[in-house]
């Protein structure tokens, strides 16, 4: 009897343990917490909205989405990787910081190669938005915006003087020189390597090739770089272009200059509109329009250029890697959601097909007095320049910024500036070998 009781008690205990363990196991399988880190709150807003829709695909799983803006996000992720700590399932890598993840092949060893996963969708996105996130020919990020460059301007300044909006650089300098007599500049330039790259890319130049090799010293790139610097010099000398040091370029001085009518506008990418102009110049609604970036008179180069971008990457060692990719694909690689992204957070689609949709080209923007701004981008989306990343991109940008400051100051000529940067880069590349 006693033995029977003992056996029953043991069996009962096992049954209790099994019963306790079963729901726990089931609960583990149906509970998924996904994480995303970025530097921009708009991405959190858009991903959160899409995630709520996407999770309907998995009715048996209870998803929790921990999407957040993390200060110094790239330092933190790289620090976590160095310390063997976890990184988020999804990471928004700003293209300027992508070379940091190229060091030692970090991007390849820690993030998902999206090339094959994108499959047929790859060709739907313009190539110039893939290359900033390529490492050794493979794609590791899906971009958040077209980042195409346009001219933001105040039409009243031209209209009051009977001037038309310039379409070529020659006209730009000519119109700018006329306005400069009244102390008005057409746009501004700063000592930022990325801004120089923007002008260089439009003219058809390149700094690195698809293998990440430094090709600026080679022709035609060297000649194009000098040509671009000379254009900027001409703009500065004529007063068409105003120099603003990088310390002041994102501050209130520019907006104040718009308000006072001594600065017509800015040649900037699409993100400038909702990230800088609208929030800082709310009171100037209806005073701006968007036009095409001036082109080179000889017809060489592109209708536009690019600057900026944030590509979302998937941490491949995380257990949610598959879910993270699916969410990213749903959020960024579907035509419908690319259009929603524009409607909700005003980042232009990277799929050229989206520019045939009336929700992009037919949308009137009240800030631009009802202008259908999407039409401007529809004209240039297929001519977005392609450029390539390199391990030495940050070295180039920081030293080019120094050379630009010297060049704008008149301390060095265009040739000297390019020779100096080439020499510096060659020293740095030799040191890294």
């Amino acid at each position: 009897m006693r033995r029977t009781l003992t056996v029953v008690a043991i069996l009962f205990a096992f049954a209790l343990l099994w019963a306790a363990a079963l729901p726990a196991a089931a609960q583990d399988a149906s509970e998924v917490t996904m994480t995303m880190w970025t530097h921009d709150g708009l991405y959190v807003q858009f991903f959160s909205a899409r995630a709520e829709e996407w999770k309907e695909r998995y009715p048996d799983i209870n998803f929790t989405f921990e999407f957040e803006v993390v200060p110094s996000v790239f330092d933190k992720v790289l620090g976590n990787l160095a310390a063997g700590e976890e990184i988020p399932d999804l990471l928004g890598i700003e293209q300027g910081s992508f070379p940091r993840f190229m060091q030692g092949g970090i991007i390849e060893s820690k993030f998902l190669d999206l090339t094959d996963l994108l499959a047929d969708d790859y060709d739907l996105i313009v190539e110039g938005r893939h290359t900033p996130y390529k490492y050794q020919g493979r794609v590791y990020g899906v971009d958040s915006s077209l980042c195409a460059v346009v001219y933001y301007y105040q039409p009243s300044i031209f209209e009051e003087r009977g001037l038309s909006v310039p379409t070529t650089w020659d006209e730009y300098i000519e119109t700018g020189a006329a306005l400069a007599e009244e102390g008005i500049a057409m746009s501004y330039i700063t000592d930022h390597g990325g801004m120089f790259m923007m002008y260089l890319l439009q003219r058809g130049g390149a700094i690195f090739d698809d293998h990440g090799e430094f090709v600026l010293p080679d022709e035609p790139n060297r000649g194009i770089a000098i040509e671009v610097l000379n254009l900027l010099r001409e703009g500065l000398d004529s007063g068409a272009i105003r120099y603003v040091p990088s310390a002041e370029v994102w501050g209130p001085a520019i907006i104040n200059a718009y308000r006072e009518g001594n600065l017509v506008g800015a040649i900037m990418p699409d993100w400038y509109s909702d990230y800088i102009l609208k929030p800082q110049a709310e009171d100037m609604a209806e005073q701006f329009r968007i036009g095409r970036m001036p082109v080179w008179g000889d017809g060489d180069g592109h209708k536009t250029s690019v600057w900026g971008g944030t590509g979302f990457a998937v941490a491949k060692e995380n257990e949610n890697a598959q879910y993270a990719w699916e969410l990213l694909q749903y959020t960024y690689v579907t035509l419908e959601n690319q259009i929603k992204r524009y409607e909700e957070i005003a980042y232009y689609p990277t799929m050229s097909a989206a520019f045939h949709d009336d929700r992009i080209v037919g949308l009137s923007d009240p800030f631009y007095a009802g202008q259908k701004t999407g039409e401007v981008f529809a004209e240039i989306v297929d001519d977005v320049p392609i450029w390539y990343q390199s391990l030495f991109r940050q070295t180039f940008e920081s030293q080019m910024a120094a050379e630009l400051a010297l060049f704008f100051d008149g301390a060095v000529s265009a040739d000297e500036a390019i020779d100096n940067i080439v020499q510096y880069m060659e020293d740095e590349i030799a040191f890294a070998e």
Partner: protein
Amino acid sequence: MVQAAMTRGREARDAGGFQQHKLAPYAFISPFYVLFAFFFLAPSLIALVLSLFRWDGINDPRFVLARNYGRLLSDKVFAQAATNTAVYAIASLLIVLPLALVLAVLLNSKSLRFSNVWRAMYFTPVVTSTVAITLVFQILYNRDIGLLNAPLIYLGLEPIYWLGDRSWVKVAIIILIAWRSTGLLTIYFLAGLQSIPEELYEAASIDGASMLQKFYRITIPMLRPIILFVSIILLLSSIQIFDEIQILTNGTGGPANASMSVVQYLYERGYTRLRLGFASAVGTVLFATVFILSLLQLQWYGVFRKED
């Protein structure tokens, strides 16, 4: 027999007590040395070793011997950053230190009314966030809308390009350093001034000494240890300046690297470009420089001089 056992016991206890007596002071001071070893000595030694490697922080380091030092010494940007830092350090010693001393003397004056209010005001920059201060200064220095240029613009003069001119940007940073550091140093000097016996000044007055004579013959010599302490603190902080320049110049150290400090150079190379071995070499050179300069300062102030 009992007596012998008691004697042995007392000897053993005394020996133990002696041991305890000998070890106790070390035990009491050990927390500092343990922390010092863990948080300063070990990282410094690791940095020294790391400076001989190429390392991105994630993959395996590669031994490169003194290549990092070779590149460092041939890099014109480092030379510029070192020159800029030297300018900040010298300007701090020549401007901030005397300014703090003069302010302390004024604040110590018996005829000054509301002295506590004045003292609190001078201390305010020390307890204010560096980021907030620097952002305010960024606006103050703005060429077109900055307060500092307002009088010049009002008078029809050409405004100063505080943050866009290679010379003026250094002046802008020195002004910021002065504004930020002077208050704290003034408090140190004030403490030193209050410890000078009043009788010395009274005796000097009886002997007919002027204010200036009292300052040079009593105040300065009596403040010698404080001056040494303050000058070392000031030198260290100005050589390690980072936050202010990083924020003021949007992380560029511009224009044309004209404001970049050595620590900013180290940060850019180490964290932005992930060259941790190279950054360690910069850190080692910086440490050696600060150490030697501090020793020279101590030597100059006679700290190592033997008393007769």
